[in-house]
């Protein structure tokens, strides 16, 4: 045949829980009430922590930090589908998911106060530290997937998170390709929040969806309402199950929105309209989830108040603890540069300590 057709390639978009908190019964992933409440709590904890961090920053008690407001469903929904033994390979816009993974609330405070100690991740060893260099974490996820395969670790997967802008990086493409060739158990989860700092989607890419980028790699792909925690959960559940079954990687585009500043150093009034933000406010992931819980009669104002109070206390305790005067070892960077003792490093440590002492005493 001189002319023939390649394809057609089709993808699905779905939403489980709409903006009013109504569920699509056919798509209901069937979480138990307990699980639903766990997921809800994770989103609220993320939101409250985010707000607290922002306040601390505005008061000068923290340095520059990214704000996650409005994107709670995307990472929490995904983590809901993960086990502790799965790997979480994220960027910096997954606060809810990270806390849900067991990271302490103090961690982000330490990090955003300029302390590597916030990456010690002891409570969650398979959660990688935040990656600042965009998309650089994605190939790592694929390598981890390979190690799972090689070690024949049963029922273990990797979920890696990144933004819409990050899909423009070469590392995204290379990692997607490696993953599909190697058939590794990796879930690629893109939080498409419409913006990369001031750059809107239409300047970022010419394609209508990010999900369709997976067609290049023959990778199962789906686009979901990213403010719908159940849709994200469902898509991740299915992707992880495929991964566990040895069927390789999957791609998920979670369509959400960055409701606040990119980081505290950013001023969105320079580049976007309020009404866009207002429109998205109506799609808030927490509001709709709460409405759903109410409709299900497993939630009410009283419980909400109790939860909020509990969470705020938890955060307040973390803040208090974090702000206890502590001495951070000045020469700690020398301890972790190499895994072997290196003469030059020890010589430099001595030089550092001498100077440090003199600087402190103004000597």
């Amino acid at each position, binding site marked *: 045949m001189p002319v023939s057709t390649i394809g057609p390639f089709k993808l699905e978009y779905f939403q489980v829980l709409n903006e009013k908190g109504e569920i699509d019964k056919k798509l209901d992933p069937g979480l138990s009430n307990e699980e639903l409440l766990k997921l809800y709590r994770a989103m609220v904890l993320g939101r409250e922590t985010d707000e607290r961090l922002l306040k601390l920053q505005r008061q000068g008690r923290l*340095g*520059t930090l990214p704000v996650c407001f409005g994107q709670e469903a995307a990472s929490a929904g995904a983590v809901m589908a993960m086990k502790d033994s799965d790997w979480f390979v994220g960027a910096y816009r997954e606060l809810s998911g990270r806390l849900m993974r067991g990271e302490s609330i103090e961690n982000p405070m330490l*990090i*955003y*106060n*300029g*302390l*590597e100690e916030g990456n010690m991740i002891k409570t969650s060893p398979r959660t990688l530290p935040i990656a*600042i*260099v*965009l998309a650089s974490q994605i190939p790592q996820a694929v390598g981890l997937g390979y190690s799972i395969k090689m070690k024949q670790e049963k029922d273990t997967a990797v979920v890696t998170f990144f933004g819409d*802008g*990050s899909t*423009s*990086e*070469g590392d995204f493409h290379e990692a997607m390709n490696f993953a599909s060739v190697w058939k590794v158990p990796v879930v690629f989860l893109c939080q498409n929040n419409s913006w*990369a*700092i*001031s*750059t809107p989607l239409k*300047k*970022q*890419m010419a394609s209508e969806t990010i999900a369709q980028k997976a067609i290049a790699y023959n990778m199962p792909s789906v686009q979901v309402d990213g403010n719908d925690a159940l849709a994200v959960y469902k898509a991740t559940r299915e992707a992880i199950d495929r991964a566990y079954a040895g069927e390789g990687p999957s791609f998920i585009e979670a369509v959400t929105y960055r409701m606040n500043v990119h980081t505290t*150093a*950013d001023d969105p009034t*320079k*580049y976007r309209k309020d009404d866009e933000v207002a429109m998205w406010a109506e799609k808030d992931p927490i509001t709709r989830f709460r409405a759903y819980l109410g409709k299900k009669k497993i939630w009410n104002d009283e419980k909400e108040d109790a939860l909020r109070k509990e969470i705020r206390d938890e955060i307040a305790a973390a803040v208090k603890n974090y702000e206890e005067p502590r001495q*951070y070892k*000045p020469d*700690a*960077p*020398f301890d972790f*540069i190499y895994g072997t003792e290196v003469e*030059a*490093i020890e010589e*430099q*440590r001595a*030089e*550092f300590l001498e*100077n*440090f002492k*003199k*600087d402190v005493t*103004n*000597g």
Partner: protein
Amino acid sequence: MAKLNMIQAINRALHEEMAKDDSVLVMGQDVGVNGGVFRATDGLYKEYGEDRSIDTPLAESAIMGTAIGMAIGGLKPVAEIQFSGFAYLIMGQLEANAARMRTRSRGALTVPLVVRMPYGGGIRALEHHSESKETYFAHTQGVKTVIPSSPRAARSLLIGAIRDPDPVIFMEPKFIYRAFREDVPDEEEVGELGKARILQEGNDITVISWGAMLYRTRKAIETLKEEKGYSIELIDLQTIAPMDATTIAESVKKTGRCVVIQEAQKTLGPASEIIAIINDKALMYLEAPVKRIGMYDLVMPYFHRENWYIPSDGRIRRAIEETLDF
């Protein structure tokens, strides 16, 4: 004559060059509508539109690679890499193409472009926002690497870089973007690439620095001069590569002593090359080892510890005194 800080001076240079030459354009992440995360490109979008003030997609290698293509095609792109910590992603394109096209084509194809990038520590930023890796660029043959140390120098050197026929890496010490203002003349000043500048003549010792460290060094020296009356020759290196060996050597021949203050890490930081140049051209004049101070061979710590690691005023002062006392 206007008193400008460095960001304003850079912004001014871009405005001036874009007004003068239609082929000049700026490109990079958030350089358009937003005017750059540090506002270096502020107003260019409004003045020259989105075609000459391009908000690119998020991909450093392509920013570099497409800029090379534009330059071959007759434009003069001034690309911004948002922070130098993300510039390692351009090394492939830089080395393979920007740095080589003139040699490869025996002069038929040239790549006149500028890559601007804020570098260095001191602004309480996140990881990857504080390093000083000018060595990567300076070790790349065929590329010029420039670092201004004041608003006036920034404006004139950036104009010099834009008009230069070669690819220029223009590293901006973000710590002093807004640290101070300086008179910047209304008339055009075109900085000469490849030349160091003697900021202050002296006979006792040569002190060499650049970028933000020069600013700090200047302050340290003031105290020393006042308190102890030393005669210090202060050199602003300005161009890391090709390095101005003559100015360095002549000064050291005169003073016999030298201290280099860099923000870069120790091993193979620019100070190593300065020392090698002194070795080549002025060794026998040295009365003391050249002292180099800077970041240690470590990952730049997150900001809580950052200032303990970047050379402090005290450390600079001590280094100068120790070298004088040697």
